[in-house]
């Protein structure tokens, strides 16, 4: 029973990381038809930004230092993603394939840059003492870092849902996912929504990067690309352009992976996820979320 609970919570932590990457991917694809390969790099950018900030903010006390590091990651993520959209993706608007290609190139270049700057080896990620230990949930000892990751992902989910459903910009984005042309035909500059969505996605991914450091206790340049693949799977299973779908799919993927890896053999869980994706796509080629 305890094992199940521990596995569930670590699995949820993984789900949370997947969701943070997948949320932005899903919105970007839903609105702009861009499969953003650079999203993994946004995650790495966030992870290294948070790490760098935590190394340079010694004079702040524990919670403030950690919070500031997260905020710094958010800002850097938003800026990098926004610049990518403005400088590289926007000029290719209307050429969906070239947009995908350009993000592939960016993913290569950005992750090479990070490797150049901080090396390919893992770096220990600083976590405040209050979060480093374990806590007791229903009698089971679970890592606080997992709980924090889940809590942050839930907060991001709530914030995104509020933004999408309670603000005018959110309505513009949801409308754009359905019919970009008609949004423009109502006199709205839909391209501005593209930049906003890239920034939001970049922020969520950067936060995911910082939390990857918290969750694993260390960061390295390969985390972004490998999380990206699972996030792709989450997005496809959850339905492109649907935040709720992504949340649900990341739950399924994270838990499946964690449990199968534990009870079968390490690696089998990853295989199970691939198989799940293949099955979903073959049964419903457009994922579970979108009803077309």
């Amino acid at each position, binding site marked *: 029973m305890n094992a199940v609970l521990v596995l569930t919570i670590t699995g949820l932590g993984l789900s949370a990381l997947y969701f943070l990457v997948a949320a932005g991917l899903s919105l970007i694809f839903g609105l702009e038809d861009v499969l953003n390969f650079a999203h993994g790099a946004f995650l790495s950018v966030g992870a290294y930004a948070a790490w760098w900030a935590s190394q340079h903010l010694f004079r702040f006390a524990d919670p403030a230092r950690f919070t500031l590091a997260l905020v710094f990651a958010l800002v850097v993520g938003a800026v990098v993603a926004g610049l990518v959209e403005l400088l590289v993706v926007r000029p290719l608007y209307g050429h969906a394939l070239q947009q995908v*290609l350009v993000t592939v190139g960016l*993913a290569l270049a950005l992750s*090479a840059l990070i*490797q150049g700057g901080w090396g390919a080896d893992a770096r220990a990620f600083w976590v405040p003492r209050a979060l480093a230990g374990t806590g007791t949930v229903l009698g089971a000892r679970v890592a606080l870092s997992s709980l924090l990751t889940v809590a942050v992902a839930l907060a991001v989910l709530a914030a995104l849902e509020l933004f999408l459903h309670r603000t005018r910009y959110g309505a513009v984005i949801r409308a754009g996912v359905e019919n970009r042309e008609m949004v423009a035909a109502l006199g709205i500059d839909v391209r501005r929504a593209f930049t906003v969505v890239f920034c939001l996605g970049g922020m969520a991914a950067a936060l995911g990067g910082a939390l990857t450091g918290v969750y694993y206790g260390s960061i390295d340049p390969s985390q972004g690309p490998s999380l990206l693949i699972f996030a792709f799977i989450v997005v496809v299973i959850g339905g492109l352009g649907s935040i709720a779908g992504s949340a649900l799919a990341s739950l399924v993927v994270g838990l499946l992976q964690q449990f199968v890896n534990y009870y079968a*053999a390490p690696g089998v869980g990853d295989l199970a996820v*691939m198989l799940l994706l293949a099955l979903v*796509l073959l049964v419903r*080629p457009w*994922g579970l979320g979108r009803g077309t």
Partner: protein
Amino acid sequence: MGAGKGDLKVPSARAVQVVRWAGLAVGVAAVALIPFAPIGVPGLFQAPLSSPGTLQLLATLLVFGATALTYDLQFGFTGLLSFGHALYFALGCYVTTVSVTRFHLGLGPAMALAAMAGLVVPAALGAVCLRTRGIAFAMVTLAFAQALSIAVLDDPLHLTGGSVGLPLDSTRLPRAFVGVFNTANLYWLAAAYAGLVCLTSWWVLRSSPGRFWRAVRDNELRVDLMGLRAFWFKLMAFVVSSFLCTLGGAVYAVVLGQATPDVTTVDFTLALLVMVVIGGTGTGWGAFLGGVLYTYLDDRLNQVAAAPAISHLPPVLELPLSQPLFILGAIFVLMVLFFPHGLAGLMPRSLAQNARRRLGELVVGASRGQ
């Protein structure tokens, strides 16, 4: 060739043919004779062409050039964007290596086994994956490739050597492929593979299936409406391309002397995609050129990065320039933004054709005994 005899008015068509074949013959001869050429090409290669180090690099260039061409067959000519082409390269690489090293097969049977796998696996997976299209196709091919990559890396059956890779047991290899002094043979193997891929692609693309591939790429619906099922043409392109790619993996295992998990990853597929786009999508020769260029730059930039000229630069410049993948990625982004047709698109077609015709007229004129 006899048909054009006495047709004095239009020598150019025939002349072009003559020049084309002559050029091809010279090119093939040049590629074949490189191991006998102790010529240095300063700036391009550090050692003479016939030195083992350079031959090894040239062999790698040929293998990746040809593999990029196999990717172009399905991506550029048929419009199938797969994120799982690495699977087939890895299949060839690992089936060959595992058969030789773990099951003590000879190299011939091992490669035959790889070739068989290279037909069966893409036929089966292609039939499944091609039920989807577009992004879904890209994702489902990615999933299968990723599954193999995980299996290779985790190595539950203790066959693949995990993240270290698996050396090809040299005691089981024909002696011609063992040792530094036989690098020329590895080079010729790679050249033969490249020749096979070029020839097959040329032949398939000229014949009617190849024309249908392009029709499917341009307008799948129309092919379906013609009463021909686009599915079968796509599957055919997928199998032909993946089969040739599997052979490339097998050859690469021999050239490198080992199987490395690097070729199983999605990064390897992305590298192929980059090669094709840099060279020019849907041109064939552009993809080959792109593959050669990418591999060359990847190799050379690693050495350049370590060069004192770079390491003495201020960090702002030194950091990006010391990363070959950064330079390649940046080149790629710039190509996509500013030269979407790749290197092939940079070469004005009329220029090349005119040059060839001119040359042809001169040759034919000279051969008439003027």
